[in-house]
């Protein structure tokens, strides 16, 4: 067979096309989160490796810093921070003509003071008469800025915007919301598989029906229960335990179903042998079932954990939207509304919220896929 047939090349190109389309959005977000926020606001992320033309306004220093030299009163200073790497192309002294002067030109203000500017942003402002104003005059610069990458956005988002706390809150929601259903469903699935009791088949049918019930069906009644419960005992209606139990409830059917499918595949003889040896169901569960189920537990843990970590609706309805309770997705949504133009905050915030899922994705992909495939086979 020809290895480099036209059809093989075509399929490679087609797949490459899909891959590029699929990776670009996330890649753009990642690059943007590392860019200097001033550059991010004025140029596309795909230009981040080239120099960018930036227009800025600076104010020179006021009268305190003047010195007398060669018969002039002078104020010297620099516009840019050290090592900014920016090179001025042109500048102006009024907002109407921001490109009026080139480097080397002497710009003259109305009060006959003059300013000289070099391309690194060092200025010398001089006047025959003494400067009397506390605030200096404005300069409008057009400069070329080299690519600038920084972790500043991450520092800002984590500690000033409250994303750091939201990250901890999300962890406090997701971990118990994953472990609690795993604990109670493993016993539930065990009894549905290996114990005989009246109503077992009905219970199983209910689980299968519950698999597809949309969680919207539960929101209003449960919110009412929580409110009544809170009023009755004088505690907050919205709380972490409330969210854990809600997630447990919504994940119960799928967790039980997946676990039961797995347990069913274990050989019956093993249980029988253990029983003959006098082991109780709890012994069997601890000594045989748990060690054998580790891979299944891992898959289900990942699925449920990602579901809880990425959830928005449950966190929105069953938690107060205050700094000590708000979860990452709700926080991001809030930032989308209030800081919609501050892309350095949004992109960085989104990337922070994605770190845990992406870590799980790359480190434990095998279990993730296994869980998804197992869950889908039965629909």
């Amino acid at each position, binding site marked *: 067979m020809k290895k480099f047939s036209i059809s093989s090349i075509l399929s490679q190109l087609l797949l490459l096309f899909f891959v590029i389309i*699929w990776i670009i959005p996330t890649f753009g977000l990642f690059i943007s989160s590392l860019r200097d926020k001033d550059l991010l606001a004025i140029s596309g992320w*795909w230009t981040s490796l080239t120099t960018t033309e930036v227009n800025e306004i600076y104010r020179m220093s006021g009268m305190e810093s003047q010195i007398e030299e060669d018969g002039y009163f002078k104020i010297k200073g620099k516009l840019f921070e050290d090592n900014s790497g920016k090179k001025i192309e042109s500048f102006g002294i009024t907002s109407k003509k921001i490109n009026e002067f080139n480097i080397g030109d002497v710009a003259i203000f109305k009060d006959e003071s003059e300013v000289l500017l070099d391309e690194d942003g060092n200025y010398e402002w001089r006047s025959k008469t003494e400067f009397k104003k506390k605030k200096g005059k404005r300069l409008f610069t057009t400069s070329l800025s080299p690519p600038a990458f920084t972790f500043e956005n991450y520092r800002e988002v984590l500690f000033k915007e409250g994303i750091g706390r939201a990250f901890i809150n999300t962890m406090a929601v997701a971990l118990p919301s994953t472990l609690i259903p795993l604990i*109670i469903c493993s016993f539930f699935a065990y*009894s549905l598989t290996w114990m005989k009791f009246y109503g077992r088949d009905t219970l199983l049918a209910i689980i299968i029906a*519950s698999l597809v019930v*949309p969680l919207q069906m539960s*929101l*209003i009644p449960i919110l009412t229960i929580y409110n009544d419960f809170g009023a009755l005992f004088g505690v907050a209606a919205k709380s972490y335990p409330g969210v854990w139990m809600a997630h447990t409830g919504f994940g119960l059917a799928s967790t039980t179903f997946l676990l039961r499918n797995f347990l069913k595949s274990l050989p019956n003889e093993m249980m029988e042998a253990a029983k003959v040896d006098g082991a109780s169901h709890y012994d069997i569960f601890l000594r045989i079932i748990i060690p054998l189920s580790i891979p299944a537990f891992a898959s289900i843990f990942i699925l449920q954990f990602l579901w809880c970590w990425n959830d928005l609706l449950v966190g929105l309805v069953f938690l107060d939207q205050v700094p000590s309770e708000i979860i990452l997705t709700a926080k991001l949504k809030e930032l989308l509304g209030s800081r919609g133009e501050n892309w350095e905050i949004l992109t960085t915030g989104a990337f922070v919220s994605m770190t845990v899922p992406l870590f799980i994705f790359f480190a434990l992909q095998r279990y993730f896929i296994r869980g998804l495939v197992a869950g889908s086979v039965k629909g």
Partner: protein
Amino acid sequence: MTILNLVFIVFLGILFFIAYFHISNYILDTYGNKTLKRYNFENSIRVIVFITPAFIVLFIFILYPVFETIRLSFYDKFGREFVGLYNYKWAINDPEFRRSILNNLVWLLVVPTLSTFFGLVIANLADRIWWGSIAKSIIFMPMAISFVGAGVIWKFIYEYRGPENTQIGLLNAVIVSLGYEPQAWLTIPMWNNFFLMAIMIWIQTGLALVIFSAALRSVPKEMLEAARIDGASELKIFFSIIIPYLEQTILVIWTLITIIVLRIFDIIFAMTNGEWQTGVLANLMYDWMFRGGGDSGRGSVLAIVIMIGVIPILAWNLYKHRQEQKI
């Protein structure tokens, strides 16, 4: 609540359930065999110990709410007075509801179909190419990201600046470089729905892809070899062998994505909040849970409409389960 407190209650919450099972079973193991002579009796108690927590949760969070939501849909906004079909009549005449139903239907038509299609095509391509598994990984990655995170990613792509400014949104930058006017994509009625759906397709294709990849391994290699030797083109093989062979899987994935799309909420809530005619049922329902102090009657009707969408799937699952039990 300080972080230390938070860690403490998380620990306590998890420990509570472990302790319940351990202590109750320990008691049963230690005293059960001595005092309760009959094995059957001990066994029944054990069943109760094993299933009670799960059953209580199932009852409170799924079973009771389903019936309560149905009841509430016939009651007024506070759930106190019986109002008959009033809420349903309101829904039928509400333009927002009609718009949401329409949008939901378009979502249901477009997203599962395209995600399944792309998933199948990509799985098939990746299966035959040496760097296929890397490609699959990349396309599967959005599955791990939250809908809100994906919303931010795509909002950045759709970002709009006035024509006099440099475009920082990729889509508008491309449009401008081709010589067209930049557009505020998310505010163009009807079309904006498709821009939102693109996000969902971007996410769900990964799901379809991994399941198809697993299923493709079950297609007999000899059959494909034979077809190739007979000179069938790859396209022909795809349509005449692979698609018929994976018919069941296609159906399963299509249903799976349909269920997810039916309750889609986050993407629209984060991107447009239902404005510019992008609302869907789940968003309208969330809205009515809190609008004007909340209206449990109208909210319940909307939940029931979403539920009606899954009833055929529910019935089919139960039917299949019954068939399996017989074997």
